[in-house]
């Protein structure tokens, strides 16, 4: 709350200072970073591919809504922002946008009518798209997406955040990096990975921390605390750099598998990352997922060993992984199951152990490892509690079509039991995170009441 008030104060103060400047200085739009020939045309499918890489649908398609018709509520510290209609409908959508207006939205966060977009639109990242990809994306939205004329709820934030001109000042600080993409590695794979992560993938929007002004603290490899961990909608977006980060613990094929299927030999993608896999990453080429994994591995200096082939083998057999040294004590407790075993491990044995095992190591690509698990130990405790209460759902993907559904235990465990269980998980097998209180479980139970019930089904005729 204090941070919030400081942001309010700083934003208000900044607004006053720059007010005069705004009166005199016209809005300056970033020009194209390359001059393409007039008859330049994107390759077939290129625009759709950039859309996938940019995960446009994640925000611009509402749940059960028509593609890109907007209206999806996005919770922000400033209030609820509704995503816009980006179909080519001339009135409700962006059908009247010129290429320059379209580019201005991506590069400068400027709407067709000159108003500022809220930075929920990650133009800090899209600013680094190449001109080819901007053109391809424009072509896709203008010519391949069906127009939708349905009106959507207007974003109506409270003062001072409804004063969009204030964003102009914010942009002066946030958009100091040049537009377009500059390769640095002299290596095709690593540079491709860097581009996908920095620009369309906008990984930094969640995985980089935000500074006091809510700007991404690091939007490129060489800036700030790039990809050192952030949060979104109550979920931790774990660090992607640093010795304990997943890209350093996992090999490149496993990292790519996580992106392509939402599951790998260690973990599964839940919550917001599950959506990223479903809407974006699974649609990239295997080579592009390898490139992303290679960049993340190599970024802090990890050794990059590219896999010989990206073709999946016909079948995969992975034996059970035994507990590590840190997990042996917990494993011994659960296996011996003494009569006076505390309620936490007892609940684990009765409800969780069949899939996640006494070792806490789960099973590769299907049951996530709980030992060393980031989500289990996160300071953001909502996801862990919510998964125990409401279950989890890894989406069907082309390479791994099975929907992995963990059922919820909302009806089976009360708040105290969930707290005991979660507290056990956070300290078992060498995990090292603080306890969960009964009150916290009660909060999450109330907040997530509407998530209860059956998981989404795929369409069935």
């Amino acid at each position, binding site marked *: 709350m204090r941070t919030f008030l400081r942001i309010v104060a700083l934003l208000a103060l900044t607004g006053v200072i720059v007010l005069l400047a705004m009166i005199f200085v016209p809005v300056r739009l970033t020009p194209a970073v390359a001059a393409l020939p007039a008859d330049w045309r994107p390759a077939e499918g290129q625009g759709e591919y950039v859309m996938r890489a940019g995960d446009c649908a994640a925000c611009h398609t509402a749940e059960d809504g028509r593609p890109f018709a907007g209206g999806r509520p996005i919770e922000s510290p400033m209030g609820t922002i509704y995503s816009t209609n980006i179909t080519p409908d001339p009135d409700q959508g962006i059908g009247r946008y010129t290429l320059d207006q379209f580019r201005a939205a991506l590069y400068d966060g400027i709407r067709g009518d000159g108003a500022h977009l809220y930075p929920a639109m990650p133009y800090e990242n899209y600013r680094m798209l190449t001109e080819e990809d901007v053109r391809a994306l424009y072509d896709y939205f203008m010519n391949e997406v069906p127009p939708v004329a349905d009106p959507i709820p207007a974003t109506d934030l409270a003062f001072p955040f409804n004063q969009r001109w204030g964003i102009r000042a914010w942009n002066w600080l946030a958009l100091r990096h040049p537009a377009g993409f500059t390769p640095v590695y002299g290596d095709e794979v690593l540079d491709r990975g860097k581009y996908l992560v920095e620009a369309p993938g906008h990984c930094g929007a969640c995985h980089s921390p935000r500074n006091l002004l809510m700007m991404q603290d690091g939007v490129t490899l060489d800036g700030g605390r790039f990809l050192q961990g952030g949060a979104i909608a109550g979920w931790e977006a774990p660090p992607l750099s640093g010795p304990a980060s997943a890209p350093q613990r996992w090999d490149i094929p496993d990292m790519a598998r996580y992106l392509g299927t939402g599951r790998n030999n260690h973990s599964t993608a839940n919550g917001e990352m599950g959506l990223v896999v479903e809407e974006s990453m699974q649609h990239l080429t295997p080579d592009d997922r390898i490139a992303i994994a290679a960049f993340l591995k190599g970024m802090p200096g990890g050794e990059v060993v590219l896999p010989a082939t990206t073709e999946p083998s016909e079948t995969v057999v992975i034996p059970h992984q035994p507990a590590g040294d840190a997990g042996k004590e917990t494993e011994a407790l659960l296996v011996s199951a003494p009569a006076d075993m505390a309620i936490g491990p007892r609940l684990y044995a009765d*409800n969780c152990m069949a899939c996640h095992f006494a070792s806490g190591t789960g099973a590769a690509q299907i049951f996530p490892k709980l030992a060393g698990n980031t989500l289990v130990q996160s300071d953001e405790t909502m996801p862990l509690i919510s998964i125990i209460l409401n279950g989890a759902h890894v989406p069907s993907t082309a390479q791994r079509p099975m929907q992995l559904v963990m059922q919820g235990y909302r009806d089976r465990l009360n708040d105290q039991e969930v707290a005991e269980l979660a507290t056990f998980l956070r300290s078992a097998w060498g995990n090292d995170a603080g306890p969960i209180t009964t009150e916290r479980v009660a909060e999450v139970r109330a907040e997530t009441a509407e998530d209860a019930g059956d998981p989404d089904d795929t369409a069935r005729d």
Partner: protein
Amino acid sequence: MARQEPRKDVVIVGLGWTGSILGMELSQEGLDIVALERGADQDTVPEFKYPDMLDELRYGVRLGLVLKPRNQTLTIRRGPDEVALPFRSFGSFLPGNGVGGAGAHWNGLNWRPQPEELKLRSHVRDNWGEQIIPEGMLLGDYPVSYDELEPFFDRFEHVAGISGQAGNLNGQIIPGGNPFEGRRSRDYPMPALPVTYDARKFAEAAAAMGYHPFKAPSGIASTAYVNPYGMQMGPCTFCGFCERYGCFQYSKSAPQTMILDALRRQPNFSYRTGAEVLRVEKAPDGKTATGVTYWDHAAGEEVFQPADLVILAAYQLFNVHLMLLSGIGQPYDPVTGEGVTGKSYAYQMNGSATLFYRDEVFNPFVGHGSNGMSIDDFGMNQIDFGREGFIGGAYWRSGQTNGQPIRSMPLPRDSAEWGAGWKKAVGDWYGHVMSIGSHGSHMAYRGNHLDLDPTYRDRFGRPLMRMTFNWQENDLRMNQFMRARMAEVVAFMKPDLSQLSFKDLGARYDIRPYQTTHNTGGHIMSENPAEGVVNRYSQVWGMHNVFATGAGNFVQNTQYNPTGLVGGLAYHTADAIRRQYLSNPRPLV
């Protein structure tokens, strides 16, 4: 007037194992396919979820996943001298219902037949002469050989996710596997599961007596597994809820774990539940089918689904019923021996030994449906039929499958059946008992058959199917042979008490106790249209755009659980349709 749906390239009747396999394989050809399933949709979550699924009363006793006889059943009699009556409470066998079919609630016992079993008439003729074939036995060769089916057995095992250890890799005998099995082109996709103490105890005795124990193959995952469709299993926790239950943790091989989510992604495939097929519609000349008519339970009306290709992938009993109702193949007449549809219904001949040990503790709640050690020393290809006086064989297995308290409470025969005496017996013996099972072949006979009942009708007004079936001396003699051999093993194992349960000579079929859901035949494969309903590709003789999958194809039953052969034949059929039929639709033989 029936509603009519837009034409499809393929209609599949039933969405169990073989319907899912054919759906997946044919959808890869780009065909527009619809599958019609009479039951409801069901998946691991929420239908099979923990702990609701582990409810012995609801699923084990009240048969929650099994077809309800009030919705569909058949009549049964033991011979022409009896009047068949409707099977009003399933006992002897338990047909599945709903998406996944019986594949959702099986035990996971997955075997290949022995090569000799597929050419059994030739095997008998070449070794002992046809004169040893008893009067009334319809002994036949399958019109397809083990070697021809081997790639398809292999394919099914890799899709289905089978754990086990090869005993014969390309002709080389591998220690620890079944030395009497047919040649495998490669090993099982997953290593064999560990086995429980009872199984080890049996295996030690068997080995000491000169037999060849091996870990039973199993449609239960021993590791994390990804199959060729990208579908997945997680390793089994030995919870002991397999048969009659859906697996709550993705560990049992089932259409749900191995095929269905991949199939749902195919844009040219769809399926409808609550769609109960009433009959196959024939073109005016009777040489092809035009589609199927089904009852749409939600809409409460008949629907005609036109299609160029009809796959009958219902359970064996219902495939045969549909054929009889639709005039596919000439109905079999047991008096004249003419006709084919309903001919050669066969079953399984099983027995067991129960061993009681006061001082041994077996922890029976640790187990799974296909747990255990087997021997195949009394298998079909190890027995001298001429000397023993029967044609048949059995494989044995010992391994606890569950410790469910209502149904898994083996007590000595003289125990009280209720009250304080029963409680004392339970206290004395629960957890101190192990068993050995003999799972034997069953031949086809002139009298055992399926036809339409003259009296009883189903809720759609169609005649029920009538089963005429009784045990025959040949198979009972085989069973008595197994009894004698097993008595020797039991004596060697020195239990405090023991009892043998094998049908005596002269035993008659009792439909009440559960025996096995291995109903076979009725639309058997044959070399020519006079002897069976379908050809070697499971294509109906004389109706080239109708194919029938499942155990109805079995010429006679094998000594094994049928799923491995059912799966292999389904892939064989899919391959024939893909590679031979689609480019030029015609009779393939």
